């Protein structure tokens, strides 16, 4: 049975993906400035209203979905790939390699994630790719730790020992018998952290460390129009709701998926 939270979260996520991919095709140019339509309330011409430069908010929201969710997706991908790679490498590389990987993971886990992201973004300077890089720098650590623990424990598992005794080499045994289980857990743990990633990315963009204007990004949109929110409350309601829904969707999916992969256990690492 698919848990209900997974169901709701997955549909929300699909809706957001459609918004990100398809909506920009139907909506006007998100960067087109129109001084005759400044701060227009939501209506027929502009379904979600316009901002202080008369740009269509619905179009900017959809374009922002691409920026925000795209960069978060990139960080997620890095944390899954690097985590899985580092975890299995540590287990395959023998005692010394294992120790090295474990200590590096210890270090990455011991550092405050967002502070490190701020530091790297500070050294590299503002920019979307710099921000993705800065956030990826520590995002892989929890997944690597989990993959490492799982792979390490799997070496003692009866089915893996049987496979090794049947003459299957260590690499093939790893790929065929251990990796599928490890991958499922790594994906879930990486997804559990995505809600926090969305909030961090939006916050750092809000501070001006992300995409340069006029690129639409949810956190940045709110930062740019924050002085007009009393006159035009939709300028704060729309991006905040989008962030809220994205975080909610991902949390629901992650919780549901965790329940599927490993029923009954509550103590999972969170970012």
């Amino acid at each position: 049975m698919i848990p209900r939270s997974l169901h709701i979260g997955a549909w929300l996520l699909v809706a957001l993906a459609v918004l990100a991919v398809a909506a920009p095709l139907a909506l006007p140019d998100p960067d087109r400035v129109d001084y005759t339509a400044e701060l227009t309330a939501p209506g027929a011409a502009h379904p979600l209203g316009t901002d202080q430069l008369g740009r269509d908010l619905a179009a900017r929201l959809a374009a922002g979905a691409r920026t925000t969710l795209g960069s978060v997706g990139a960080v997620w991908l890095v944390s899954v790939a690097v985590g899985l790679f580092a975890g299995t490498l540590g287990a395959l590389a023998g005692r010394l390699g294992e120790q090295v990987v474990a200590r590096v993971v210890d270090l990455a886990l011991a550092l405050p994630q967002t502070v490190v992201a701020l530091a790297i973004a500070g050294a590299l300077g503002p920019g979307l790719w710099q921000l993705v890089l800065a956030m990826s720098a520590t995002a892989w650590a929890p997944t690597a730790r989990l993959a490492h623990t799982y792979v390490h424990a799997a070496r003692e598992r009866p089915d893996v020992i049987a496979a090794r005794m049947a003459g299957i080499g260590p690499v093939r045994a790893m790929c065929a018998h251990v990796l599928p289980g490890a991958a499922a857990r790594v994906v879930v743990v990486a997804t559990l952290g995505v809600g926090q990633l969305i909030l961090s990315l939006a916050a750092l963009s809000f501070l001006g460390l992300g995409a340069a204007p006029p690129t639409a990004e949810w956190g940045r949109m709110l930062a740019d129009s924050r002085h007009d929110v009393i006159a035009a409350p939709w300028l704060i309601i729309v991006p905040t709701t989008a962030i809220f829904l994205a975080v909610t969707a991902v949390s629901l999916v992650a919780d549901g998926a965790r329940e599927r992969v490993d029923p009954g256990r509550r103590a999972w690492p969170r970012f």
Partner: protein
Amino acid sequence: MTRLVLRGLATTVAILLAAGALVWALMLLAPVDPARQILLSQGDPAPTPAEVDATRHALGLDDGYLVQYGRWLTAAAHGDFGISWRTGDPVAAELAERLPPTIRLTLVALLFAVVLAVALAVPGVGNPGGGTDLAARGLVFGGSAVPSFALGVVLLEFVVVGAGIGRVVADGSWSGALLPAIPLAVGIGAEWARVLRGGLRDALDAPHADTARARGSGRLRLLLLHGFPHTAAPFLTVAAMSTGGLLAGAAVIETLFTWPGVGRLLITSIDAGDLPVVQAIVLLGVIAYLAADLAARLLAAAVDPRLRSRTR
């Protein structure tokens, strides 16, 4: 217990040394030339290559990386983080001026977060699945998905500017910290409430709690003597972990409320490419985080005897 303290201290110092190397290495990542930046900050509008070379040599920036790191670390351990590329002043002096307001803000936020966590976790715990419990869980879920900067904008634009409560330009005082501390505390308080609720439910569902109930202990006694001590260890771990989030969140909230603290200085310095200040603040943040983590681990061991006996 002494062994535990010593082990914890040794681990923390080892991590701090490695983290120090990473913070120092930020200098290598930066797309600018430190020697040139220092000359610019000292008021030289267009340094010649010869001047840049001379400065680089004078500051020892042409030595090996290991020598440079050793020198930077020794100076940092003495509280000397070099001079700011933006203002030309010593970094330590700027930090000393900015630190008290940030400490005030974070302490008030921590207080709010504790109150929020207890207020959300405790009322519903006696009756899981009941109305109070469901409402509290909904609030926790919502509170952890709302971006703090959006709450900050609401408070600043609608309460301060719109309704005229509080001051627009923050002065860094205790009373001024009340409003900015709210958005800072919401996300953390929600996270803590989740952990507290889970821990309390586990403790109150356990057989020993049934025994205590059967022997006639009241709800308050049950909560204080049998509930809270059991949640202490996981709660302290999460509390220490949120120090990191608090420091980064302080950067957002301080910038928004123009709070004269370290967080805003960090963002200003990042914008200006002022790396020595960024390095100093990040190192300070890492130290605060590691100290909180160590304190939490030792406190948890003091409360929970199981953590004391399990020395690997």
